[in-house]
């Protein structure tokens, strides 16, 4: 039965006749919600072109493209994201993953254009009406993170344990720690561009995540034949540009490199690197010095088939790496691991042979088709202030060399070190250990021209030196070593008000009114080293071109104006290990090119 009520009831809809309409009167000018995921905006100054947005985009709507107004620098790829609104699905994952938080979405959602090409644009570069909008999707909260901003801590010996021994401080990552640290990498490759050797950093970090460390070793050896060494003491320019460092801590790239090298046993290297059967050609190359550049050149020439012989002044290989860096940072057995592998490929080495003294460059030229020289900077520089000729004023490089050789050195009760770089820290910390061993207490002070914020030493070196008991008092210019009764009594210093002038040249200024005296009975100068070119003599020297600053001129392959003579390492670039390695690699290619052309 149909009920009368069911016939009448629907007519109650007529009530609505008397109600106001609910439609939005001006829908085109409706403001979207503050969180709305509308058109993109990119803060170009903040963006570093890491490409995380492009990597996470599931629709491949974001391309990284070159932009005329942005320069490529260390730490900035020079690329900026271009968004294609034909593909974008407005998920805002690109915003959430952005390593610098430069990319946001505005709450603008209307855009009319007749040209379909318009909808592919570079936010922040192509000006749009919504560029100045403040509302829209941004990363929702400080602790809402797609990235891992904190480093996995490295286990280290405590200051107590380490301050009287030369045992290696850094303990290395465990498998779990290394994988966790490797997980933080976003594969941007800014590090690759910055690394002087252009190591395949994201690739070898990936091998840590994927537990394929043999592949990791192969990737490292493509550009760096000294991974154990670099994994410990590299100046890690890669880490200073790491995308993670903008809001958090950069990746421990150096420790991950060390982890890969440490995990691969030395006896497996030849199998892993497929190097047990290298063809040998009839060309011979001599290498002067077995430092980073020499070893690197030797390795890359040897794998190309050349007969390589290294001439080394000291009784062991490694150059500054062995004789300049204390073993608590770089143990000798680790240097041996890298060196022995290179020697195992058939690279010959002749120790205790100083070129220029035991054998001349001309003699080498007669016997070898090409010569590479990476003699480094072993000669310490002096401040030449009054009193610096005193017998208890030392050069850091000489002292470090003696410590490595195990020779007895003078260790005073109160020591002053002049210098703010890593060598200054190395000698400070080495002498602190020796003081502790000898006197049971540490009394060493290190001062530098540079104030704390611009000291060239690695931050951790300064922190660790202080932890071990050394006093670091930067920002002072040494004026005089005070000598009484032929004994050093102290160092008179004045406040340094500037180190470099407006043009960036070294031109320190001191405040004469702000003066003090550091007490001490021994001074060590660690203000830099110079090269010893005494082996370049006569005709050869005349043929070599030097630039205005007195440096040897070489081409992009480190070939000097004498075609068979190549130079690299600290005497050309750096000074540091990774530049030496990079130079060596390039020089090996240059020598190969030169010898192939002359066949």
């Amino acid at each position, binding site marked *: 039965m149909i009920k009368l009520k069911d016939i009448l*009831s629907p007519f109650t*809809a007529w009530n609505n006749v008397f109600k106001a309409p609910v439609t939005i009167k001006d829908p085109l000018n409706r403001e979207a*919600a503050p*969180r709305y995921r509308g058109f993109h905006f990119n803060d170009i100054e903040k963006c570093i072109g890491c490409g995380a947005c492009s990597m996470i985009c*599931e629709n491949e709507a974001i391309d990284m493209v070159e932009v005329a107004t942005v320069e490529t620098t260390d730490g900035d790829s020079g690329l900026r994201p271009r968004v294609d609104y034909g593909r974008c*699905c*407005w998920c805002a994952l690109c915003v959430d993953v952005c390593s610098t938080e430069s990319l946001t979405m505005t709450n603008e959602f209307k855009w009319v254009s007749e040209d379909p090409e318009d909808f592919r644009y570079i936010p922040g570069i192509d000006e749009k009406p919504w560029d100045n909008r403040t509302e829209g999707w941004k990363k929702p*909260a400080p602790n*809402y993170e797609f990235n891992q901003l904190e480093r996995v801590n490295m286990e280290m010996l405590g200051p107590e344990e380490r301050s009287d021994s030369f045992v290696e401080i850094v303990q290395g990552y465990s498998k779990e720690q290394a994988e966790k640290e490797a997980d933080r990498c976003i594969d941007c490759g800014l590090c690759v561009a910055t690394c002087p050797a252009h190591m395949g950093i994201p690739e070898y970090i990936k091998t840590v995540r994927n537990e394929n460390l043999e592949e990791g070793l192969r990737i490292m050896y493509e550009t760096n034949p000294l991974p154990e060494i670099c994994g410990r003491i590299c100046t890690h320019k890669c880490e200073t540009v790491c995308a993670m460092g903008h809001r958090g801590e950069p990746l421990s790239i150096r420790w991950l490199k060390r982890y890969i090298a440490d995990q691969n046993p030395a006896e497996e290297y030849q199998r892993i690197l497929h190097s047990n059967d290298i063809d040998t050609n009839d060309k011979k190359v001599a290498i002067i010095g077995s430092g980073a550049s020499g070893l690197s050149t030797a390795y890359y020439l040897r794998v190309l088939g050349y007969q390589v012989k290294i001439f080394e002044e000291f009784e062991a290989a490694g150059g500054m790496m062995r004789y300049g860096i204390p073993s608590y940072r770089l143990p000798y057995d680790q240097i041996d691991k890298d060196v022995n592998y290179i020697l195992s490929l058939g690279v010959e080495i002749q120790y205790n042979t100083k070129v220029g003294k035991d054998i001349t460059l001309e003699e080498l030229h007669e016997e070898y088709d090409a010569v590479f020289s990476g003699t480094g900077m072993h000669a310490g520089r002096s401040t030449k202030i009054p009193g610096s000729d005193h017998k208890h004023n030392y050069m850091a490089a000489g002292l470090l060399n003696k410590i490595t050789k195990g020779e007895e050195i003078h260790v005073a009760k109160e020591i002053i070190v002049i210098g703010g770089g890593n060598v200054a820290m190395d000698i400070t910390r080495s002498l602190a250990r020796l003081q502790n061993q000898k006197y049971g207490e540490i009394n060493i002070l290190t001062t530098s021209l540079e104030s704390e914020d611009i000291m060239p030493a690695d931050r951790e070196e300064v922190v660790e030196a202080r932890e071990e008991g050394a006093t670091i008092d930067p920002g002072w210019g040494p004026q005089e070593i005070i000598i009484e009764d032929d004994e050093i009594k102290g160092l008179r210093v004045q406040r340094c008000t500037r180190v470099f002038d407006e043009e960036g040249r070294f031109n320190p200024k001191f405040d004469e009114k702000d003066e003090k005296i550091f007490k001490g009975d021994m001074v060590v100068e660690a203000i830099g080293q110079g090269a010893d070119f005494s082996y370049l003599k006569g005709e050869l020297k005349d043929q070599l071109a030097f630039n205005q600053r007195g440096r040897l001129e070489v081409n992009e392959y480190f070939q000097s104006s004498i075609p068979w003579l190549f130079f690299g390492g600290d005497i050309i670039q750096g000074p540091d290990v990774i530049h030496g390695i990079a130079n060596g690699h390039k020089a090996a290619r240059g020598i190969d090119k030169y010898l192939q052309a002359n066949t």
Partner: protein
Amino acid sequence: MQTSNLINWQPDRSKFPDQLADGSFKVDLSSGKYVKIWHGPNHPGVTGNMSLELTLCGDEVMDAKTHVGYLHRGFEKLFERRKFIQCFPTVIRMCVAEPDYNEYNYAAAIEELSGIKIPEAAKWLRMLALEMSRLQTLLRIVPGQGGTTGLGIGVQWGVYLRDLILDRFEELTGGRIYHMYMLPGGVRGLLPDGFRKRMEENLKEIDDFVQRIDRVQYQNAVFKKRTKGIAVIPPEWVDQYGITGPNARAAGFNRDVRKDYPYLNYDQLDFEVNTDNFSDIYNRSRLRWRDLQQTVDLIRQIMDKIPDKGDFKAKTPNVLHWKIEKGETYIRSESSRGEYGYYVVSDGSEYPRRINLRGPSYIHAVSLLERLLKGANIADIGAIMVSLQSCPPEIER
């Protein structure tokens, strides 16, 4: 034959073929008595991009076949080539009308496989988004049932109210249709300031709508004539076919994933599962109307319990190469259409091995619909399809 007992469309059955015990008709296409037509894929009476191949005798359906393939998407295959985080904006597209259940199931599966515990605020916010999603779907489907029988006014009311809920979604999640809110590890934001007040204003309007639609649609002689006793799902079919949601509950089955296998914090909410004892179009629609009221009540309960501050996303590994532990899981939730499940397999790599959706529409719009349409009047097809509330992308995934 599942036809109306109120109106006997064809009293003289002598011109029609005999109906067999399984509901099918003996059709001899060469007799010239039958005509085959396509209902859809573009047809206002079809729920989405699918079509029905109908064999008609007069205006009665003798046979029906469901055809899908108009969406060309193949999501499940696509996922195998996407990293886990990249699947997050795509899973939602497997049901446009009610995307949030995809988000929840996917996120919950990843969390279960990788052992992530989400913060308390994220649980409540997920429940809010899920219930809001149910609400906006019901605001379409409840008056939409009237729409299939020519009653357009309810649809207009529903569209307006649904838009208000989409406004709330917009301010909570940043999107109106595809919310992309529940990502593996938590959600993407807390309640905005003043959200509760605006939501309550909307819910009040919906309370009023519930009364109005009752008078206009459910106490409506024409609507009753068009829907009562039509497309009846007998209780014995429910387990045979795997029918779920309001379609099963209207047949007397007290089944609801939220009650039977509580997830998130549903065990802390006070609600009873709505059931009925006769699953025809009218009762199914009426049940959804009751569900609508219940959803409004649940949203009020949830809004009282959502924390206003605190973490809303757990710490996860770097999403760019997130490897999920090797394993498999099945995660289910109660959507407005019934049990909605995700089967996710990970082989321990950065890419899913398999993501499989078990949606109610595969049953409701293919096997069940084909069965229910046999003997139905062509004018009722739209009403029958809407009463099953199916969603083609779920079938063709």
